[in-house]
Structure formats: C-alpha cells, structure tokens
C-alpha cells in the first residue's frame, strides 16, 4: 500500500497534486474506488480500506483517491463542485489506468462513464444534504438558535454554507441538491441487504465489520474476473 501523488485537474485549468491510496502491482484488473462523501467517508473509511486489502489479496489493483478539498488535499473545498469532482475522478481513471470502478454511497454520484463497475448503497445528493442540514439544525438548537432546512439552504445558495465542518460553495449546493446516481450500462448496484447487517454509515461513530468487508470484496472480485 502506498500513498501516491497524482496530477488532478483544477476547476479553472491546470493541475494540482492530490493523493491516492494505491495497491498497484501492475496487474490486469485495476479498480478505482470513489469514496463516500463527507461524514459518511469517515464512517466507511475502514470498511473501504478493508475491502481494498481483500481485493489486493484477490489479485486486483486498487486506487482510492482523495476527493479534492477533502482528506489530505491541499485544495479548498469551497471552490469545488460535484462536476469538478466528476472530472477529477474521470482523470483518475485515466491516470491509474483503471479498468473498473466502485462508487461507495455518495461516491456513486461521481462515477465516470464508460467503465464497468458497481455502486455500493448509492444515495442521492439531496439525502446527504438533508442529513447535513439537519445536523446543523440540531446543533444550533442546542445553542438556542432556531434554523430551518429551507432557510439554511436558501442562504447557502446565495453565500455558501458550512455544514458538519465542510465549507460548501453556492455552486456546489446548486448542483448537489438535484444530483442522483446516474444509471449506466455495465454498472451493478450492491444493496446493503446483500452484505447483511446494517450500513456502517448509519453508525454514530466509525466502526468495522469484517463479514461485510468479506462480502463486498467477494462480489466485486467475482464480478471483475467473470
């Protein structure tokens, strides 16, 4: 496993280095994994990397890029949009010569077209946004402030907004609120029921589940080699 820098396109042209977690042994099957978004990314990080370790063991190269503006990225999140994230993931496919792609939860919203792959428990942008707005409202209420989802969203669309510690720009919100996982030929959905147990993104705190990692990795490994 290596952390590798790669030239990721910037929204206004040019590139900036972003990091990706790579298991690269120059093998035939090369899987790009698009991580879950925001708070869900933290809760699913361990499951994601556990799946990658299993796939590596099954002879599949794996690449897990940071989304620009998150994790180790040096770029500001506020300048990013879902479209620029999609462009970043499309560039990652080319750079890492990916043959397949796995989108996890909100990562399924950023799947590049043209590659076979899987969407694990895909979710709409509006659902993620609702959750983040709600968390902010609950926290504000504790502080004695009355906010509403509609009010926050309206203001956010005018001046941007910080939700759950993430600074989201106006354009990000505009695109994200109507973003749904795109139906694509060659893409298969993996529902939570197939993994058994409840989704780890639901948990209040990050957790792990070996059985779920085993199953998710098995579904992808069997599918790639089929």
């Amino acid at each position, binding site marked *: 496993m290596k952390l590798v820098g790669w030239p990721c396109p910037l929204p206004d042209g040019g590139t900036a280095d972003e990091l990706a977690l790579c298991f690269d042994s120059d093998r035939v099957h090369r899987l790009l994994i698009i991580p879950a978004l925001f708070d869900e990314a933290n809760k699913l990080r361990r499951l994601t990397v556990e799946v990658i370790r299993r796939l590596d063991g099954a002879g599949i190269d794996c690449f897990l890029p940071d989304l620009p503006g998150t994790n180790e990225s040096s770029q500001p999140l506020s300048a990013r949009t879902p479209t620029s994230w999609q462009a970043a993931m499309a560039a990652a496919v080319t750079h890492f010569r990916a043959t397949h792609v796995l989108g996890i939860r909100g990562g399924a919203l950023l799947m590049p077209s043209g590659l076979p792959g899987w969407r694990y428990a895909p979710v709409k942008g509006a659902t993620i946004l609702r959750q983040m707005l709600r968390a902010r409202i*609950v926290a504000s209420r504790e502080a004695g402030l009355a906010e509403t989802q509609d009010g926050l969203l309206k203001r956010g669309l005018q001046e941007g907004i910080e939700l*759950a510690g993430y600074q989201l720009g106006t354009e990000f919100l505009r695109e994200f609120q109507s973003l749904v996982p795109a139906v694509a030929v060659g893409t298969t959905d993996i529902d939570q029921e197939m993994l058994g147990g409840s989704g780890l993104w639901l948990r209040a705190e990050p957790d792990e589940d070996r059985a779920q990692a085993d199953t998710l990795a098995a579904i992808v490994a069997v599918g790639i080699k089929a």
Partner: protein
Amino acid sequence: MRTDTDRLLRRILTDVLGLKPGQAEHFDRDSGLFGHLPELDSMAVAGLLTEMEDRLDIMIEDDEVDGELLETYGALLDFAEVKRAA
C-alpha cells in the same frame, strides 16, 4: 406486548448507535437518550431522524425536533407512534 413501532425503533437505535444485539431490548420509557448516550451527537441525531423517516415511513419537520423529543426512549416512541397513526 410491544407494538410494531416499538420494535422498529429499537432496531433503528441499535443500527445508529452500534449497540450490541439485545442491548436496546433493555430500554424502558425512562431510558435517557440525548445527553445520556455519548454517541448521540448532532450528526447522529440527524442520522437517527432520517432513518426513522425511512423505516417508519413518516416525515419529521424541523420544528418538531427539540430537546424533549430525544430526552427519553418513551418520548421518542410516543412521537413515532403519533406520527405513524397520522
């Protein structure tokens, strides 16, 4: 005899809080939630409400969410029962 809502709500709390199987079975009406369970911060409350909406097939308005709603298991269950009956 537990209602359907009661069983579902215990299941949801188990999933969101990562409780051990069976732990939620010991909740009674006075069991404290928000402020008593360290896992239940604002993000987790948001997750809990969204899961309740999905699995109980209800809608929860912003102004219905206050400290009292999440104070005890009994209060949350009453709220869910009323919402499902509406």
